[in-house]
Every structure is written in structure tokens, then in C-alpha cells.
């Protein structure tokens, strides 16, 4: 099993697909890497030769932010918004949607599970 970009061990799939298990690599970047290294996209991840794995690792290290560095980058961008106290930063702080979505209903991804308020209309108190 090849190890690419730290802890990630994509398994019994064609590399074209197994590369996507790395944080920061989606369909587009996966195909870009394969095109650049010239590897047959249909080879299974376990069948890759040492040199091919080396090529992929070199390609990723050359210009793609993945895993830890990318996560840190995203976190830093959010932290910057918080620090300058702009509207988007405030929304991140309050855990509400950042891009102007409605919050009257829905918005559950940002707000988390429903918190039922006793005594409110429709709920027997």
C-alpha cells in the first residue's frame, strides 16, 4: 500500500480515484497529477511501482497544498477574518452561515442540531 502525503493510504482503487482520498485533491487535481506524471490512470494503487509513487509524491510536493498545510491555510484565512472584526468574521464567530443565507429556518449545518425551546409555539410545555 503506497503512502502519499503523510498518513493517507488509498487502497484497492485505480489511482485516479484513490488520489482523491487525500485532503486537497479532487477529481481535477487528481487528473492533473496523472497527466503530468504520465502514469496509466487505470493502474490500481497497490500495483504502482516505486518510481511511480515517487513521481506522484514529487508532483504533489512541487505545487499542491495538501492535508496539514492546507488545513492550516484555511484556518488562517478564517482567523484573519475574525481578527479584523469584519462581518464574515463575526458570522464565523457566532457559528452562523457566512454567505448571506437565511437563518429563519434551515441553516442547520452551521447551527448544529436543533435546540428545542420549551413553551414555544407548537411544543407542549
Amino acid at each position: 500500500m503506497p503512502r502519499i502525503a503523510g498518513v493517507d493510504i488509498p487502497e484497492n482503487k485505480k489511482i485516479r480515484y484513490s488520489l482523491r482520498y487525500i485532503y486537497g485533491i479532487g477529481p481535477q487535481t487528481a487528473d492533473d497529477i496523472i497527466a503530468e506524471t504520465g502514469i496509466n490512470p487505470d493502474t490500481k494503487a497497490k500495483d504502482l511501482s516505486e518510481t511511480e509513487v515517487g513521481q506522484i509524491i514529487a508532483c504533489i510536493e512541487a505545487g499542491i497544498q495538501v492535508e496539514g498545510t492546507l488545513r492550516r491555510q484555511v484556518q488562517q484565512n478564517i482567523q484573519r477574518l475574525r481578527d479584523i472584526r469584519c462581518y464574515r468574521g463575526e458570522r464565523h464567530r457566532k457559528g452562523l452561515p457566512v454567505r448571506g443565507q437565511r437563518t429563519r429556518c434551515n441553516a442547520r449545518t452551521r447551527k448544529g442540531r436543533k435546540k428545542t425551546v420549551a413553551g414555544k409555539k407548537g411544543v407542549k410545555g
Partner: protein
Amino acid sequence: MSRSLKKGPFIDEKLYRKVETMAAGTKKTPIKTWARACTIPPEFVGFTFMVHNGKAFKEVFVTEDMVGHKLGEFSITRLFRGHTNKKEGIKS
């Protein structure tokens, strides 16, 4: 959708000129403004603005990180004091 590159960022001209004249002098007083839609260019760094939020002027000190944002982003227009509590009445 983002703004056309041809036009460049929207910068309130009057405000920009005001900053320029103030930069030429020595005194840096807060500038009262209603131009919430004005993008912050690098020249604004270090100045204090009083940005109108519809009711009052909120003081905004521009730092380097704020370049590229709009002045209105730093002067919130809504006041949320929390939800009401039936037993205790309105939370203040």
C-alpha cells in the same frame, strides 16, 4: 458575482481625496463617512473612519489586513441582543 476587472475596485472618490489631503498634512482625525460600499485601498491603512451603520457612526481603524474589504463590513447594521425568555421577560 465579482466586479469587472476593467472597472477596478469601487473607491469613493470624495473619500479618497479626503484621505489624500489628510495624508499630506500631519493631523489624522477620524473621517465621518457614509461610503460603506467603498473598497479599502492600501492608502487607507492607518486612518480611522467613522462608518455610518444607518443610525450611528462606528469607529473603524483600518489595518493592513483590511485592504480589499469594504468599509461597511466593519460597521454592523443589525443589533441582536439574544432571544426573549418567557419567565424572565426580555433579556437586556
